[in-house]
């Protein structure tokens, strides 16, 4: 999964540049924001499910911006992620669920049931 992500974000030269910039910004985050952001990033890699490079880059840039803002405002980490960090992470990534690997399977399931339902005799 991790390797796949890196392959995607190195898709084009422009994307590669954006990915590098993202890493620089992540590394520049002061503590404790840097550690919090990286812990979430690790979770995204396992559970993000985004496969489209452009969407992924947009997500990463919004994500690092959220932490940069928090660092400037001095917002406590708990106030950002809330009581349940997993729920926060899932809600955050769900907003970018434009193209997920599961989409193909969702379409397949919908098509299979539609075909059956369409061919059923009318009551």
């Amino acid at each position, binding site marked *: 999964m991790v390797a796949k992500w890196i392959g995607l974000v190195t898709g084009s030269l422009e994307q590669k540049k954006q990915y590098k910039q993202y890493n620089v910004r992540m590394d520049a985050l002061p503590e404790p924001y840097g550690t919090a952001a990286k812990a979430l990033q690790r979770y995204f890699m396992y559970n993000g499910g985004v496969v489209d490079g452009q969407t992924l880059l947009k997500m990463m840039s919004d994500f690092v911006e959220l932490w940069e*803002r928090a660092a400037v405002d001095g*917002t406590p980490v708990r106030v950002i*992620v809330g*009581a349940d960090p997993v729920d*926060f992470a899932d*809600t*955050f990534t769900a*907003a970018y669920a*434009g193209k997920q690997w599961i989409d193909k399977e969702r379409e397949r399931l919908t098509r299979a049931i539609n075909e059956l339902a369409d061919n059923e005799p009318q009551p």
Partner: protein
Amino acid sequence: MGRQMTEMLKGTLEGIVLAILSARPAYGYEITTQLREQGFADIAEGTVYAILVRIERNGLVDVEKVPSEKGPPRKVYSLNGQGHEYLDEFFRTWSFLNERLEQLHQGGR
């Protein structure tokens, strides 16, 4: 915030955020503060941020980047035409649910 509250809020927070933005444009931190003042004491700023990202991606708000004294520019969100339509639908749905629950609460029919 109780578990039940968290679960129920999940389905309605998007509408609540849109309703706040229908009054006037705001940035994320302002919206979170307003919600906290209104009794949602434990709401996470990140949760509101995730909602703002989603409504932006769904084309319900317009976004303007306003420079801030320190740090990255703040994104100010304002409800657009599509957002207003969505909000109207949200309130119609909410009224229906509210009515049904009220009836059930009064003794069930």
